[in-house]
């Protein structure tokens, strides 16, 4: 009785993955999902389907826009602290310290209720082209989330810039590279690559900061779940679905960052 080597190897690989505790966990998970589907109330779902999709879309674009703008601010903030003259390093450091040292909710409200109530007092602002935007809530949401991300990532980038080996920058200098070329070709790419694992975690954190925008009337996916609760008095089902949606978005973020990290292989030890 002989079993082909390949199927043996396959079986070994599969059995290594399919261990008893994993099978048990998967069974538990499946049981949870099935019981949730069977025993909980999901009849409200069709009524809020469109609103939920809009909310998901709004959560995602706020996340993407604030992360992109934030990192663009974080690069100069980090560079100023890592290599800038004191008159640039000090304000950058102060900015990061103040923003990181106060709650995001407070910043959001200061901007929305503070600036938002200050602006209408100036006729020239009310008459300007920007007014149609400034009277809405989302610009304040985007602004405060961007500032917050910039401050945290400014600190991350400071370390990342400082961690690039001096010798590699010196080599670039020794071959006649101009300072900006060195920054663009050597320093920034290496700093970003070093920062990627941290940035992945920070982006997931940023995702979980986005529900705060619901407090200033921006209808993201969290606001939709609250709406369902208020309308129908159904509490757990919308929250469970909300958790699942955030989990999926987090998974996608982590997957994308892994892809980016893998572009340059790293040897440990």
């Amino acid at each position, binding site marked *: 009785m002989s079993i082909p080597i390949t199927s043996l190897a396959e079986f070994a690989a599969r059995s290594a993955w399919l261990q008893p505790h994993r099978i048990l966990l998967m069974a538990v998970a499946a049981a949870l999902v099935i019981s949730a589907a069977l025993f909980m109330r999901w009849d409200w779902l069709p009524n809020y389907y469109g609103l939920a999709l809009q909310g998901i879309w709004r959560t995602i674009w706020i996340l993407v826009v604030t992360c992109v703008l934030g990192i663009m601010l974080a690069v100069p903030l980090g560079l100023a602290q890592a290599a800038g003259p004191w008159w640039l390093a000090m304000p950058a450091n102060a900015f990061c310290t103040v923003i990181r040292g106060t709650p995001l909710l407070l910043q959001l409200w200061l901007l929305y209720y503070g600036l938002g109530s200050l602006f209408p007092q100036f006729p020239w602002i009310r008459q300007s082209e920007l007014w149609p935007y400034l009277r809405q809530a989302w610009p304040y949401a985007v602004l405060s989330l961007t500032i917050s991300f910039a401050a945290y990532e400014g600190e991350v980038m400071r370390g990342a810039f400082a961690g690039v080996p001096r*010798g*590699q920058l*010196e*080599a670039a200098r020794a*071959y006649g*590279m101009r300072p900006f*070329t060195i920054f663009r070709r050597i320093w920034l790419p290496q700093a970003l690559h070093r920062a990627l694992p941290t940035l992945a975690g920070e982006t997931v954190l940023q995702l979980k900061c986005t529900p705060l925008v619901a407090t200033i009337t921006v209808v993201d996916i969290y606001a939709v779940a609250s709406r369902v609760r208020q309308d129908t008095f159904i509490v757990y089902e919308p929250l469970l679905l909300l958790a699942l949606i955030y989990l999926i978005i987090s998974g996608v973020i982590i997957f994308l960052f892994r892809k980016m990290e893998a572009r*340059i292989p790293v040897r440990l030890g």
Partner: protein
Amino acid sequence: MSGAAASTADRPAADEAAEAIHIENLHKKFGALHVLKGVSVSARDGEVVAIIGGSGSGKSTLLRCINCLENPTSGIIRVNGEEIRLKPDGHGGAVPADRRQIERIRTRLGMVFQSFNLWSHMTLLENVIEVPVHVLGIRRAEAVATAERLLERVGLADKRDVYPAFMSGGQQQRGAIARALAIQPRVMLFDEPTSALDPELVGEVLKVIADLAKEGRTMVLVTHEMKFARQVATHVVYLYNGQVEEEGPPEQLFGDPRSERLKQFLRNVH
């Protein structure tokens, strides 16, 4: 400079070839530390100048002053007859007066570092074409062709798509030599190219350098490998405590050293 004056006349074929590197009365201070105390060294086209000396003698600093990786405190540096314009930095030292000039001069000097300093976010091939493409403005296809030839030469053709972290020290250093050659430098500068290598990897790097010397490339080489310096150098400079203690052809310096300090140095390293 005790023994320096006497030996200048010994240099063979000195006057016909143009001076590639000319250093005159170079001083370098790091704060209170006076590292170079009036050093004059020159390398003519086709010469291989080896700079030897104990640790702390200033030999690496001297090499790094040639392309202004260290700014000299005072003195004259000429590369292919072009003097690097310096201006006072306001703290008693000097800095290059014209950034464009020093960047242009640096593209004629192929520097090889003790710690290789390959760019770790690029493959070996990308390392080699980086400066030709992004500094010298050479077309990518052309730069790749040149780079492949150079990698072939240093025996790393099969490593073109490998990242530096996955190469041995000897391979990294040979790659770094290919990177320096890719800018088609007038002079190669070697800063202790084998000091960071495991003993069994030193040979492969020295062989590449010896090949370059054989084809008549102008080189300035700071090294601890006395036997190697004796084989490849056409002129040897012994630095002691920031000054040229003795210089001359290798046979004389290693065979019949005049200075007492050099004799002792050679006894200690052999």
